[in-house]
């Protein structure tokens, strides 16, 4: 049933309805309300275990321990909090564990800034976690059960990425998935191997030069192959709820006959859809492409979707000393699979700089020339 609810509260209720064994959080803006709401739910007996840890590194460490013993585990964080988890993120993925985390995306210091961009999770792209970006709070609540399903079936952890403030603090209508619905969708977590005192094993062991690379290649291949698992989890959820987001990897909006395309991630894509409708009303052949799965990066599928078009890749993250992350990967994929595209790079929205419908319109106007652009907006 739809209700008018703050995004953070809707996400916390969804996590509760996924029946987690262990939730471990340390508060940091703008993820704090999710952690507070989960703590509140725990106090009322709604969650088995909530650990109010002393830092984000402890939070991720608790998740690793819980997941290794076969527990469904969850945390939420933002910005510096995610950065503090950095080394343990690699452990969670390398040990093939299944925690799920909502990252309320926020800029990184310095300068200190509490507002939204994507630098925090994009900077963890090589950690081995899947990253699903959400446009709305409904999409976030739909992504959480999917994230548990994917993480637990392929033993790779998942981040659900939501824009800080724009989503976490927005009060809007959300159909929060209830316990019964999620029970139909999400099977009990039963990992192939787990820590068990009756049947002891070693996890996260030492790997010599003769073996280490093989472990890394296994994870590398499984991450690339996880595209099929993401799509399946998305399709099964869509069948139950009627809510779908493109093919689960990305979602095109008035894309098919579009000549000019705005590609981006997160809540800005609602503004992009509005901009596309306004420009279409004037007869302009524009479209939008929302990237949902940043990790794994669906390069081949995206290249096919944008073949023959001019594309503005809009990113709320940068790579200092290099080109913007999505632009770089999309350009590589296009070269390999469909070289007949013109791809421009736009960087904007850093540290909460508002990316309005008008900004999207301006970006789409700019890419009408022959030459690809690299600009900050």
């Amino acid at each position, binding site marked *: 049933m739809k*209700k*008018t609810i*703050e995004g953070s509260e809707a996400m916390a209720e969804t996590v509760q309805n996924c029946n987690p064994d262990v939730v471990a959080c340390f508060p940091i803006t703008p993820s704090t309300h999710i952690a507070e709401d989960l703590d509140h739910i725990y106090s009322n007996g709604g969650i088995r275990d909530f650990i109010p840890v002393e830092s984000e590194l402890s939070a991720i460490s608790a998740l690793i321990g819980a997941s290794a013993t076969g527990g469904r585990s969850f945390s939420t964080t933002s910005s510096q909090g995610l950065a503090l988890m950095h080394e343990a993120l690699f452990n969670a993925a390398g040990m093939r564990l299944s925690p799920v985390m909502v990252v309320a995306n926020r800029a990184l210091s310095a300068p200190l800034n*509490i507002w939204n961009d994507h630098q925090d999770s994009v900077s963890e792209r090589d950690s081995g976690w899947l990253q699903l970006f959400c446009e*709305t709070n409904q999409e976030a609540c739909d992504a959480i059960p999917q994230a548990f399903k994917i993480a637990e079936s392929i033993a790779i952890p998942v981040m659900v990425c939501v*824009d800080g*403030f*724009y*989503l976490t*603090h*927005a*009060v*809007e*209508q959300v159909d929060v998935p209830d316990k019964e619905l999620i029970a139909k969708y999400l099977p009990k977590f039963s990992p192939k191997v787990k820590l068990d005192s009756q049947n002891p094993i070693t996890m996260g062991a030492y790997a010599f030069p003769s073996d280490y690379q093989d472990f890394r290649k296994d994870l590398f291949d499984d991450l690339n192959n996880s595209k099929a698992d993401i799509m399946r989890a998305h399709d099964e959820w869509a069948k139950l709820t009627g809510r779908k987001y493109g093919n689960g990897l990305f979602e095109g909006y008035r894309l098919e006959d579009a000549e000019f395309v705005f590609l981006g991630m997160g*809540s*800005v894509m*609602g*503004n992009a*859809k*509005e901009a596309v409708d306004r420009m279409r009303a004037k007869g302009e052949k524009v479209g939008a492409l929302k990237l949902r799965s940043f990790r794994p990066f669906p390069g081949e599928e995206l290249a096919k979707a944008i073949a023959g078009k001019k594309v503005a890749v809009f990113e709320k993250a940068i790579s200092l000393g290099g080109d913007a992350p999505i632009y770089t990967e999309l350009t590589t994929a296009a070269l390999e699979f469909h070289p007949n595209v013109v791809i421009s790079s736009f960087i904007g929205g850093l540290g909460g700089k*508002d*990316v*309005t*419908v008008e900004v999207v319109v301006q970006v789409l106007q700019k890419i009408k020339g022959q030459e690809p652009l690299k600009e900050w907006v």
Partner: protein
Amino acid sequence: MKEIRFHGRGGQGAVTAAELLAVSVGYSGKFSQAFPFFGVERRGAPVMSFCRIDEKPIRIHQQVYEPDVIVVLDSTLDPNMMGKGLKADGIAVINTKLPAAQTGISASKIYTVDATGIALRNLGRPIINTAMLGALGKATGLVGLEDIIKAVRERFPQMLADKNARAVEECYNEVKS
């Protein structure tokens, strides 16, 4: 779509006001979205919050730059800042004892109410965010008195809810243009 911008100071509850408005509007089956803009997080600093109301789902997530309505919780804030971008046929709903002409705010229609006085009478404290929703409802017709009171009752424990509900109703009845 109607866009409402609330202006207040940190601690006055501008964020809660926008949220309660969104919740009240939600009861009628319309779509709504409330969203705060935090600056420096301290008492007394200027704070803005936004609410959108529409007949169809709201898909944009951005600040409100050209509001249909501004709600002024604290009339000592800079009137130029508060009036910025207000539509030509825009409405201002202001918490003040002063007559509209002396508020320094220019709008096609100005409604005033002494919400501070009403809050002091009912709550014993100058917390005017809920009360001002009553004034907004009467001035704009965007939300019904009953739905505001329902949202207030959902949000607060009964004693506090009763007092707030009375303040909402008094503001609804006393606001004038």
